[in-house]
């Protein structure tokens, strides 16, 4: 402790006369928070305290000073814009110019707006369907490709390709595939069914069509996270299960799945949050059509803010969505935590 306290206090020689740099290795091992602020643990018994009250006060600011850049950064990038959005949602705008404070009127208007509910329903359908399919497919791929085999690296790299393409480009590619006149998929559907099927102009098919695009793009993400999770699991329980004669399904159900639960929670949450804010594909593929079939919430917020210039109303929509996403995420995390705890 002696060397440790001296080493961490400063470069000034201690009362023992030793250079503080000599025992850095020990210092990193035994230092505690009191030594950091010049506490008594750095002194010899019976010796006059080196850290006076002034010095202690001085050092008590150090953690705050060190934390300050991060806190300021978070404030500037997260808290302030969010606070500004909340303020904006309480104001009325006309053609981008603020007219005045109107309290919660934008929120009341929102709760009466049938288009808002419709877009919310579309968004939730999209999120649940896309995330579920991506999880199931990602898990299947991860289980399939977790073992060593020839060309493993190449195959895994190829699977990553959709994920690294910009969503707008993905939208354009799929728009061509779905195109009712020259689209490969439309041609295949016509060949299969015998009559022309136009996916993006059919209200029943347009949303599934966009979900399929999302699945194609983001299943690799799910696969990547789940594969990393599976590979990091300890092997002993699996070996024990094998010795006990457990089959693949039982091993998966009673070992892999429960042990992988924290990874699954993170993967599902990240994907669900991302899917909830889908914009690019919808914008490129359908602009929210046909009719209102694919009008997701983010598209509605975008149009309200940038096309209709109803900035306050758009901000209210964004805040309402934020609260909803936060509540849903918290509920999911909590329920999974409870289940894990019980197990």
């Amino acid at each position: 402790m002696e060397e440790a306290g001296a080493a961490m206090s400063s470069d000034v020689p201690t009362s023992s006369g030793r250079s503080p740099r000599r025992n850095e290795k020990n210092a990193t091992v035994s230092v505690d928070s009191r030594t950091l602020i010049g506490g008594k643990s750095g002194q010899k018994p019976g010796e006059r305290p080196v850290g006076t009250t002034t010095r202690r006060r001085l050092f008590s600011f150090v953690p705050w000073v060190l934390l300050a850049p991060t806190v300021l950064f978070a404030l500037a990038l997260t808290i302030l814009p969010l606070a500004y959005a909340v303020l904006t949602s309480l104001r009325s705008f006309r053609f981008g110019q603020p007219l005045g404070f109107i309290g919660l009127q934008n929120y009341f208007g929102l709760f009466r707006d049938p288009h808002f509910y419709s877009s919310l329903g579309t968004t939730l359908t999209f999120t649940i369907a896309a995330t579920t399919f991506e999880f199931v497919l990602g898990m299947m791929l991860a289980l399939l490709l977790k073992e060593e085999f020839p060309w493993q690296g190449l195959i895994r790299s190829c699977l990553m390709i959709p994920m690294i393409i910009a969503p707008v480009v993905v939208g354009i590619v799929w728009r061509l595939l779905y195109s009712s006149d020259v689209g490969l998929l439309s041609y295949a559907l016509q060949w299969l069914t015998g009559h022309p099927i136009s996916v993006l102009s059919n209200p029943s098919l347009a949303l599934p069509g966009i979900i399929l695009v999302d699945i194609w793009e983001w299943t690799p993400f799910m696969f990547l996270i789940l594969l990393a999770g599976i590979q990091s699991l300890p092997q002993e329980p699996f070996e024990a299960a094998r010795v006990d004669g457990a089959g693949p399904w039982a091993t998966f159900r009673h070992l892999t799945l429960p042990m992988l639960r924290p990874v699954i929670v993170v993967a599902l949450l990240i994907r669900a949050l991302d899917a909830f804010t889908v914009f690019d594909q919808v914008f490129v593929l359908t602009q929210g059509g046909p009719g209102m079939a694919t009008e997701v919430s983010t598209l509605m917020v975008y149009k309200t803010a940038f096309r209709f210039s109803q900035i306050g109303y758009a901000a209210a929509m964004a805040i309402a969505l934020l609260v909803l996403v936060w509540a849903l995420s918290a509920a999911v995390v909590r329920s999974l935590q409870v289940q894990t705890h019980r197990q």
Partner: protein
Amino acid sequence: MTSRESALRSKRRAFFRASLRLLGGTAVARFMPGCGKTSNKGRGKITFGSYADPAQDVLKEVFLPEFERKTGIETEWIEADFSSWFQKAVNDGQTRAGAFDIYVLDDLWMPRFAGAGYLANLEELGFHPAADFVESALSLGYWPPKAGPRQVGIEPQARPTLFGLPLIGDVQLLFYRNDVYTGGPPATWDDVLRMAREKSDPAKRQYGWVTRGVKGNPVVNSYFVLLHTFGGQMFEENWKVAFNSPQAVEALEFFLRLLDYAPPGVAEFDSDQEGQTILQGNAFAATMWTGWCRQVDDLAKSRVAGKISFSVPPKKVKQVAKLGLFMAGIAASATNKKGALEFFNWFHSSAIQTEFARAGGTPSMVSAFKDEQACRKSRWLPETLKALSMGVPSPRTADWYKIEDILGTALNQVLIEKGNCKRHLDAAASEATAFLKGAGYSVG
């Protein structure tokens, strides 16, 4: 000091000296090209912000360099896709950031930009429009508008003031196949329908008509001409919604009849698919923007080079065309208003406009449209001038976007359901009326 440290120091010195030499050399090289140039050099820079569109290529590639050479004012062209540029321009206008000196605007944006004070008053800056301008094109640059109902909040006696100028004289023309319409352009919409019925052959991917059906602006633009041609209109004088009138319903029902002879899935078609259908020779007729004219004769892009002719859209009750001009205005927050004004004075002179037309651009001055050399280069210019002269713009209110979205969704629904015209138009009219009332319009 050890010999190693000494060697290191001398290396550092050498590196430092080399860096200084490089910096000095770069600085000299930077100023060398300026030697011997005219005194025009260094008259500042004007920054254009625009949406990307091939119709502006001639302006960017030929006329901006020419302007730089003539005046010594540098130009910078920053562009983005249509929606992104709208956002950027609105942000710049709202924050008065002054990132752009000249905004290139869709004519639809003029009420928003002029009304919110994002544009400088050209009259105050000293711009005097020549009498040679196509009147309907120039009138789009005034705010409040010279004719029609006025946006809520604008006094009836407020004087129309010039805030923007036409940059590209874009308008919707009828593109038709001259090997199908051998007797010349269809005079009426019934002729278009008749020809479509007679000559369409879906098995050979030959369609009598193609249009844009995507919800929002595309389908509204497609319907707009038919609505007005059938005697309908979007609003009456007092902002009473009129797009569910009997004439409007009749126009939409006719639109549906035409769609029987259009490619499948037209409800998802935007401008690119509509244009490609024409360029690939799969459709006989469409109303499209003049921006496509040059492409139909481009052998690299078109299978029907020389087989497409242009005319003003046909008649029913009356004959109209939809205006969709590229406008330009000087940003209120521009850092070089003087330079921007100099560009406007230069580019909007009859002589330069004629040169612009001869180089393949679509001008906005009558004399340029009538120039023989220009008409030989761009055979659609005479019809474009006619269409501009009888052109109808989108309603002049910044609230049009919302109405367009409501109507565009309803029209898209009609296209999908292939019916229920009256029901969907009535529902859209009710929603639009409620919105206008909420926005403070005294809807009649």
